[in-house]
């Protein structure tokens, strides 16, 4: 029996690995997904003043510092028993949506999109953003760069720094914005919406117009009927910053809807001996292994699951795209949900991109965002706080406990990708089982399709991505299932 690992060569650590164990006849015996985990962050927090954590936690991840900043700020609000002012909440919402607009743009054009724009069988050397602009034009590349710059400018104005915001503090925000800055954000918001419209056109023209891609998206190989998790507002509309966490079952029926403070009543974590990263699951359903269905507590927390867990989007253009999304993928015009095809997550991300851009544009026009009433000063220390936001790649939870002086005594984090550890494993297993058959030769194209199952989740192990060359690649290793010997490594760039 043989085993295959999908593996990077430029970095020896800090990367995900897929191990494929293959029988002598070429059939798949088993499949494991391993990711690294940074050690010791919770312990690092202990002994530090709680109010420092929103600034420190942005360093956890080079990919979504804004999400950690916001989840941490909400947890610290709880520690000090204070609710931010109305103006501060609007500013937090505004800057967070602007962050989403940039993040989802990066994923679609640079990371997930190349599989569709360039094609899953395109040579690895072309299957990147350079291949995307080669196919759709340099002008599109310029638009992408401009969109990223817009998001960063809003973060710089409101968050104080371009990438790692610093202005969310207990009870509010520390930086007031001027009328001129508001005018600039209004202009940026309008431009963002135009960019989102353009991106929807790209999805239509390049992806949906290609029957082969649509068939691939809808194929059983990339389908799992799991529970879906996402934060919703009072009207069950998708919300990234605030609300309740809602979970629907594989048929779309509400399983639970809970306040962030109650998360431990609903989510627990399973451990496997071969992975540092735990496997969260729904406590009231239970862990039944890496299987889907209503009796398995495995859930997804992704753009697709957020759409599934909601009743729609709170802005008009995103709502229209939401409806088209479900009509197209279910073939039903009555609003039938949910959708379970993992590769549809890419389109769901574009629905969210439109929402983030519209929300940025709408909040920018709110007169209250230039208010000087930015902080409700903490009056006492409660000693415990839980903050949940939707990070672009999943529900993000920060939970702190402090002593009477507000010094951290305990910290617990469930980061976005961790939620999806079990479904990612299942998706890789299913794709591998669908592709690696008795008597077949394993090709780069097959391995890329297995990677596509992984990539759709936009997984983040990005905490150490600063080390050269700046990527967190994935490795696929094929092992002989009998001996465990490595017989093939997928190094697409070699």
């Amino acid at each position, binding site marked *: 029996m043989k085993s295959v690992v999908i593996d990077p060569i430029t970095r020896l650590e800090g990367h*995900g690995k897929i191990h494929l164990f293959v029988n002598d006849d070429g059939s798949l015996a088993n499949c494991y997904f391993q990711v690294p985990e940074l050690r010791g962050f919770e312990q690092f927090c202990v002994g530090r003043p709680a109010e420092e954590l929103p600034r420190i936690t942005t360093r956890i991840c080079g990919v979504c510092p804004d999400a950690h900043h916001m989840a941490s700020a909400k947890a610290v609000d709880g520690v000090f028993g204070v609710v931010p002012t109305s103006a501060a909440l609007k500013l937090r919402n505004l800057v967070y949506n602007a962050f989403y607009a940039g993040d989802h743009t990066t994923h679609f054009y640079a990371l997930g999109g190349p599989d569709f724009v360039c094609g899953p069988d395109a040579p690895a050397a072309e299957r990147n953003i*350079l291949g995307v602009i080669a196919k759709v034009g340099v002008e599109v590349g310029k638009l992408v760069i401009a969109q990223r710059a817009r998001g960063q400018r809003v973060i710089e104005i409101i968050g104080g720094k371009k990438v790692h915001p610093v202005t969310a503090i207990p009870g509010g925000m520390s930086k007031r914005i001027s009328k001129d800055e508001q005018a600039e954000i209004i202009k940026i918001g309008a431009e963002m919406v135009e960019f989102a419209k353009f991106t929807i056109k790209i999805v239509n023209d390049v992806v949906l117009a290609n029957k082969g891609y649509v068939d691939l998206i809808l194929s059983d190989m990339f389908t799992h009927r799991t529970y879906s998790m996402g934060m919703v507002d009072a009207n069950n509309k998708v919300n990234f910053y605030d609300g309740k966490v809602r979970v629907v079952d594989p048929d779309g029926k509400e399983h639970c809807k809970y306040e962030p403070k109650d998360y431990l009543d609903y989510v627990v974590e399973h451990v496997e001996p071969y992975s540092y990263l735990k496997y969260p699951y729904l406590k009231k359903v239970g862990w039944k292994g890496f299987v889907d269905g209503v009796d398995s507590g495995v859930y997804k927390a992704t753009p697709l699951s957020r759409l599934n867990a909601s009743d729609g989007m709170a802005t008009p253009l995103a709502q229209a795209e939401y409806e088209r999304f479900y009509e197209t993928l279910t073939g039903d015009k009555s609003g039938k949900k949910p959708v379970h095809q993992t590769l549809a997550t890419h389109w769901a991300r574009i629905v969210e991109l439109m929402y983030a851009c519209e929300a940025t544009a709408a909040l920018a026009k709110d007169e209250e965002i230039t208010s000087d009433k930015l902080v409700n000063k903490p009056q006492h220390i409660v000693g415990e706080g839980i903050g949940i936001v939707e990070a672009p790649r999943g529900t993000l939870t920060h939970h702190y406990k402090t002593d009477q002086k507000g010094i951290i005594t305990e910290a617990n984090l469930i980061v976005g990708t961790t939620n999806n550890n079990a479904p990612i494993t299942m998706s890789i297993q299913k794709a591998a089982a669908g592709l690696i058959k008795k008597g077949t030769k394993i090709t780069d194209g097959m391995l890329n399709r297995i990677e596509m199952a992984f990539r759709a989740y936009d997984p983040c192990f990005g905490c150490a991505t600063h*080390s050269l060359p700046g990527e967190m690649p994935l490795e696929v290793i094929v092992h002989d299932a009998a001996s465990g010997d490595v017989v093939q490594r997928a190094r697409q760039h070699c």
Partner: protein
Amino acid sequence: MLTAPLVLCLGNEIISDDRFGPVVAQRLQEEQGGRLGADVIFAPLAGFHLLDLLAGRSAVLIVDTILTGSAPPGTLHEFPAGTLTPSKNLTTSHQISLPTALELGRRLGIELPAVIDIIAVEAQDVETISENMTEPVARAVDEAISFIRKWIANQSRKESDHADLD
């Protein structure tokens, strides 16, 4: 075009050996004040973000950590950015790589430095959250500072020679 050379120190202040870049930046800023002859920036960034920092510069030295597995921890690797080219095809992470960012910048007509050099320390631990580097990497800071001073002097000399020719 900004004529002052840029020393761009990358890393993460709270991830063990990934502190190398920020520690070097701090040392340079404290020891040299405004007399270094180069701008020094610490940035906990990668990919697209680097493009933003490189645009409009004439010469840049990137200071970072690297894991090649081919040298003992603390070893300094010096090489031009162009030699990272083979890695540009990786597509599975969140960020594009430096070579991809540079190629993207070139194709989009962004003004990029004529010189991009890299000095990277072989790391031992980039997974532990810690405000302490491992000993071999910490010991490499002095050597890196010496290298950076020479690099800056070389860039200044080139600039001066270029001006004489003009």
